[in-house]
């Protein structure tokens, strides 16, 4: 059995988040070094604020300022900070109930070690030097001497209120295509296209997934298909994709390789785009270093009869 392949897969995107009135006031407040909560129907002050009352479901908009000092309600020590976390040295994750608030806010506490942290300890906000209207405007919390700072009684109205944030999200995976696809990719490096046959329905899957989706049984018998095949259907792509270096227009086709029981997808070259047709016989064109055929080109054979491929579109 060939080695099963593995590779990192990083999924990242700068999501553009619109805030709505309450989060807008909260984040703008942080920019101005003001912490705002919201008052619920039963008179509690929620920090961070929410838009709808958790008890009555009513819309709540009554913003109140709380103090930049507070008390740790619980915590956990983070031995190894990761990329993107508030501090790059070990710190405590803390829930902090700010003075004047009835709920706690999650943030980081800069402390020399876990022995320096305890539930009930007094902490205060350390503001970031550069603030933009984001939760990171609070750089972190730091130990306080027990004194309570007084809020200024801010109304929650600001000039130039933040309306959105960019939330950079990133997920790091290790991706493995599994046994069947690793075998398929291994064969491609020898310029062979190898699928797998279902032991039950006898259909040949290319690329193989290791199981037959119809019969629900594992596939193992390898079957070399192609290299020639038939264009079963296609479209002409007229808009350039961002991540592809292919001149438009080009033909994106479904190709049923000889011996395969379903079509795979590929680009057709070596023929003007407007002369490509269903039934065209094609073969792969490999380029140095390419994992997949660069494209497929006409073989010059007569077109396949529609009846021979109409089930393979």
């Amino acid at each position, binding site marked *: 059995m060939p080695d099963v*392949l593995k*590779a*990192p*897969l990083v*999924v990242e*995107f700068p*999501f*553009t*988040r*619109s*805030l*709505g*009135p*309450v989060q807008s006031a909260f984040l703008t407040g942080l920019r101005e070094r003001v912490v705002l909560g919201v008052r619920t129907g039963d008179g509690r002050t929620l920090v961070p604020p*929410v*838009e*709808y*009352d*958790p*008890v009555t*479901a009513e*819309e709540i908009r009554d913003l109140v300022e709380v103090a930049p000092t507070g008390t740790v309600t619980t915590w956990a020590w983070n031995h190894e900070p990761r990329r993107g976390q508030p501090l790059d040295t070990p710190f405590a994750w803390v829930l902090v109930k700010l003075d004047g608030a009835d709920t706690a806010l999650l943030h980081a506490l800069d402390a020399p070690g876990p022995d320096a942290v305890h539930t009930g300890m007094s902490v205060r906000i350390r503001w970031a030097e550069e603030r933009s209207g984001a939760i990171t405007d609070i750089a972190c919390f730091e130990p306080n001497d027990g004194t309570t700072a007084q809020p200024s009684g801010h109304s929650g109205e600001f000039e130039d209120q933040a*309306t*959105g944030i960019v939330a950079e*999200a990133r997920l790091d995976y290790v*991706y493995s*295509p599994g046994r069947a*696809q690793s075998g398929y*990719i291994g064969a491609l490096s020898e310029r062979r296209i190898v699928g797998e046959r279902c032991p039950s*329905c006898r*259909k040949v*899957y290319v690329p193989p997934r290791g199981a*037959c*989706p*119809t019969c629900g049984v594992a596939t193992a018998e390898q079957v070399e298909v192609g290299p020639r095949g038939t264009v*079963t*259907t*296609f*479209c*002409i*792509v*007229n*808009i350039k*994709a961002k*991540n*592809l270096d*292919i001149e438009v*227009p080009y033909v*994106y086709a*479904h190709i049923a390789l000889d011996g395969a*029981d*379903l079509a795979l*997808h*590929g680009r057709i070259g070596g023929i003007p785009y407007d002369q490509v047709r*269903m039934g065209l016989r094609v073969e792969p064109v490999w380029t140095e270093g390419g*994992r*997949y055929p660069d494209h497929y080109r006409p073989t010059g054979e007569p077109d396949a009869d*529609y009846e021979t491929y*109409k089930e393979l*579109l």
Partner: protein
Amino acid sequence: MSKEPVAVVGIGQTKHVAARRDVSIAGLVREAAGRALEDAELTWADIDAVVIGKAPDFFEGVMMPELYLADALGAVGKPMLRVHTAGSVGGSTALVAANLVAARVHGTVLTLAFEKQSESNAMWGLSLPIPFQQPLLAGAGGFFAPHVRAYMRRTGAPDTVGALVAYKDRRNALKNPYAHLHEHDITLEKVQASPMLWDPIRYSETCPSSDGACAMVLTDRRGAARSPRPPAWMHGGAMRSEPTLFAGKDFVSPQAGKDCAADVYRQAGITDPRREIDAVEMYVPFSWYEPMWLENLGFAEEGEGWKLTESGVTELDGDLPVNMSGGVLSTNPIGASGMIRFAEAALQVRGQAGEHQVDGARRALGHAYGGGSQFFSMWLVSAEPPTT
């Protein structure tokens, strides 16, 4: 014991637009839910459970958004669950909610679906760069365009049919205040002259990307009896799935779609859908899917769907109006698109569709599909309660 009849007594939508920068996701869903409650003249306290749906989380980048939407949807202290079946999710979400009522688990259920596509990029969300795999060569329309060509080849449909669908749906949208696209100066010539993106699909034959939400209040007979406005009654509902790819898959007319429709018609006692159904809201993200689904859903014989479109049968004043609301071609907050179809079908039989009302509509079909034509959900609603 027979099932409890299910009635739609409240419907709410947001005005669908390209970007709702004035609201959070919570604010967006709240708007639709509030309108559905208002329509039903109910309050949050009248709701027993909440069933919410949306398309993949990558479309906003909020993992499991239902967790933080419990407050906004008045779900605190109640069951709340989230459904996901790709583009068909709006339909399957409504059906999960309906089944809770039909099974007498809950008396009144709020169901809602949304998408806030402006927070991300759906095409990115659907085409992550998976290692070792060949990059997708063609974009969203490129996935569907070869199937359209296969349909044309199979049926001999003239290449003019797609533009007719787009022209019809965009005109219908002008009568629907909630539709995203309101192209007041639309003409058939403009559709035909729009750029060919993925030949045979033109720009004007593709759906927009929208921010929007849709909500419904579903209830039992007791709830329906208290309804201030005529309810829509569910007479049949079904879901079917099949793999994205398998040997023998028919992308033009998937078996799961045929089976799903047959199940709904059997439940509703429909033997001739073309004659017995008055209006259809079907999921048509690219214009050619109208004739394709007309065949798949049994409104036309195989190979004949395009003839209904071409002869005007599916126009708003036709014999079988399709996508009176303007359809997905005019409004596409992906996760909500299926529920909008279900809700618009219900609006028709309640006589509440306003300017895009089909006169005398008594029975209407709502249809959704998603993934690589692999998930299907449909319901049939009527102005009359079921007889069972």
